[in-house]
């Protein structure tokens, strides 16, 4: 094991898969000459050539459509959409084509395409550049939506996504690229499945159900809660479609309490969906209503102080946990 960044882990995943399989290509805006908007693809064009690492004109719709068509005809494209905010311009091809063709064409085609895109706020990028939007895609049957929080998961899941025969959205987070974590040494092959969550910290009093960058906020909160005698289990879903529901339910069975934590908007968002699933299948295990920590229900503001107030912090999580969890005596 060694320590590396989320960014490098993603790049390694692509490099290894491109070495392994000639059919893997990367297309997207500014992935080559610019060096990658978040420098994830840096160096890959030099290594694999500009046939396989292709800068596109600035046009998300055709990037997505061409990626889907390429996937249907033998390539294994990884399409980078510069940020999820711009994916709305590609949403028709993702939702109306990628998610549906296998089904509507009677199973005659696979669509082994990967869409990589960063989401999220927190860098003062304003209303049009700070959205999560994962819910839009997670709602759609035919897609897989993967949102890793650590370098280990990012690498392992991107490798799985590239090998997967179905369309996968790998949603990264703009503030995670510099995050460091343990990753097996180069050459030590591993993948992470696209249908399994992961307990990132064990606990007994309350279950924090979360994904993407919020995982780190939850770990921070769990640490703080531990000092106050509350033992929080952190369940990192890692993928929200499919969702590893049993992992969540088993945890809730043990803790009898849950708080769902996400960065995105609250209403009709992924978190409400997760909460509804826990209620539906785990109603009797719950001793209290599920807590829910989310971003504020507003477009993202630019000003530093407003933005700070707009997104959830570990303090919000601590407060939400305390609201539903009695501190056990004697601890």
């Amino acid at each position, binding site marked *: 094991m060694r320590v590396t960044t989320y960014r490098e882990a993603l790049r390694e995943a692509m490099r290894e898969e491109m070495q392994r399989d000639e059919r893997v290509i990367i297309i997207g805006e500014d992935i080559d000459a610019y060096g990658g908007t978040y420098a994830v693809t840096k160096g890959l064009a030099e290594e694999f050539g500009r*046939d396989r690492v292709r800068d596109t004109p600035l046009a998300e*719709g055709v990037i997505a459509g061409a990626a889907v068509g390429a996937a249907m*005809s033998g390539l294994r494209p990884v399409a980078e959409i510069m940020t999820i905010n711009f994916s709305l311009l590609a949403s028709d091809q993702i939702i109306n084509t990628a998610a549906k063709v296998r*089904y509507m064409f*009677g199973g005659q085609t696979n669509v082994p395409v990967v869409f990589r895109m960063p989401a999220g706020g927190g860098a003062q990028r304003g209303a049009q550049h700070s959205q999560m939007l994962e819910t839009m895609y997670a709602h759609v049957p035919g897609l897989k939506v993967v949102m890793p929080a650590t370098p280990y998961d990012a690498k392992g899941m991107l490798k799985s996504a590239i090998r997967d*025969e179905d369309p996968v959205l790998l949603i990264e987070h703009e503030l995670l690229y510099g995050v460091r974590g343990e990753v097996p040494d180069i050459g030590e092959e591993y993948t992470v499945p*696209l249908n399994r969550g992961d307990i990132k910290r064990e606990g007994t009093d309350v279950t924090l159900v979360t994904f993407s960058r919020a995982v780190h906020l939850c770990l921070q909160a769990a640490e703080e809660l531990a000092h106050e005698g509350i033992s929080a289990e952190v369940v990192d879903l890692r993928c929200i*479609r499919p969702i590893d529901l*049993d992992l969540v339910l088993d945890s809730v069975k043990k803790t009898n309490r849950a708080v769902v934590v996400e960065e995105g908007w609250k209403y009709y968002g992924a978190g409400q969906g997760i909460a509804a699933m826990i209620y539906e299948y785990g109603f009797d295990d719950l001793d209290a209503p599920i807590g829910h920590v989310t971003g504020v229900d507003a477009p993202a503001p630019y000003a530093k102080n407003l933005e700070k107030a707009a997104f959830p912090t570990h303090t919000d999580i601590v407060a939400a946990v305390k609201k539903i969890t009695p501190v056990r005596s004697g601890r």
Partner: protein
Amino acid sequence: MVIRDLTLAGLNKEQLLNLHYTMLLMRHFEEKAAEGYTLGKIGGFLHLYTGQEAVGSGVNLALEPNDVVISSYREHGHALAKGVDPNALMAELYGRASGVSKGRGGSMHIFSKEHKLFGGYAIVAAQLPIACGYALSAKLLKENFVTVVYFGDGAVDEGAFHEALNLATVWQLPVVFVCENNLYSMGMAVERAWAVSSLEPRAKAYAMDFEQVNGMNALDVFQAAQKAVKRARETSRPTLIEAKTYRFRGHSMADPTAYRSKEEAEQWRQTSDPIVLFENALREAGIANTEDFKKNDDRALQIAAKAVEFADSSPLPDLQSLTEDIMVDPTGAIAWRRPR
């Protein structure tokens, strides 16, 4: 000079009569489909190809079996030309298990892996970017197929047209864009939707090669397609073809056609029926006669009628197929639960 050595556009009598047959098969198939719709056997939307037969049949004659065809919801004709079994096609329209797409797609979503007829898309212009992807595969995987994508004059208005044509020239993709300009999208006349009267300046905007053809003349279409396909295959360069044509029927079976006069449509049918025009040409060239035509007509009608029989006697899809084939990976379904 022996009669059977006569050729037109480099095609011999057999090839020419095949072309004639293809058009007739399209014509009769669509008539039967219209009947099926009226009888309530076919549901949803039904867009017929009637009037436009010269385009799909002419282009197809320029293709190798290995070449790829991608189309819109108005794709029955393209599928028949590419060799898709009329029985399986009609069964798809009937929503039966024996349909090309297992009855799950319907009229708008025809796909035949075997014949490289790769869909049937119902979001206007979405097929153009998808076709670029197929062409990219051909280029990078060094498979020597050409991708042909059909679309209407309305599709030209969508941003996807612009993005796809630009990508195709910038990346030099072996793709042929065939615009079937039938003068209307749904009710929107093309002269109200475009400020230009031909697609030529649009092609120039992307420095793309362009061919304008009379879409009612199958041989003109064939020759333009031949050039474009050769260009794509040999030099990996795209072409935009504009085929001026006319749909003899409404946009779909649900269209009251309030936006055009009966006279206009009648005029086109009388003077520009692509099958009649082609028969005249063959007759004038002394290549074929009424008897030849009659034989083709009978055969096409019979095949279309048999397709209806086949479709109508085919079983409905199994109810369990409702949730099959959504994904390759069965654990990709959201409701997947851990094995215990």
